[in-house]
């Protein structure tokens, strides 16, 4: 079976992982309550979507 010939240095490992990070979600602003919210989704803070209250906030699980 093929095996690694050399151990990878810390720098090599870390360089590889330099791009392993989570990206910030892009958020839009709720026109109703001005809180950040996910685009194209009901605002979890006020339950509004497209200018009307579509759901009570407590019902958003």
């Amino acid at each position, binding site marked *: 079976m093929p095996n690694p010939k050399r151990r990878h240095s810390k720098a090599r490992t870390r360089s590889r992982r330099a791009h392993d990070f989570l990206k910030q979600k892009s958020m839009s602003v709720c026109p109703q309550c001005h809180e950040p919210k996910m685009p194209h*989704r009901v605002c979890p803070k006020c339950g509004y979507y497209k200018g009307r209250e*579509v759901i009570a906030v407590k019902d958003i699980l």
Partner: protein
Amino acid sequence: MRHGMANRKLGRTSAHRAALFRNQLASLIDKERIITTLPKAKELRPQIERLVTLGKNDSLHNRRQAERVVGEDTLIAKLFTTLGPRFNERPGGYTRIIKLGARRGDAAEMAILEFVGYEPKIEEAPAEEKGGGKKAAPKKEAAEETEAAAEAKPKKKAAPKKAASAKKPAKAAAPKKKARTPGTKRGQ
């Protein structure tokens, strides 16, 4: 290759899937709005649309076609006497899907599947303005267009319904997630 494979399996056997859809379609006809995961809502939408289209033309054959999917007589009756006539003018697109965001626990994307014109009955601190529960479909469409319209319209209907709906919120303070009281809070 998964070319031309239209539907999701939703991790179920075909019988399990059919039973799930039956149940959800029945709930949707009954309550006119259901909250489920986005993939299920997307699978359900063409099915309910097909049923409503059947409901527009009340014939024995159409009733039997609908009964293949929804077994309950009361729901079939509602489909043909309420929903069919309500959407008579609308050439399809009787339902809408509103995304809710990820569910806590498994981060599944949730969605509301509701009939167009559904007026959410939201109980909260008594609202300044209350909209009527049932209006004609085209009117409701217009009300959604702009917030201004939504604020302006309920005023006419607000007065008579306000009294009726004001009592209810207290009673139903802690219902299940689908239970709602009449009385709709509109734009603030």
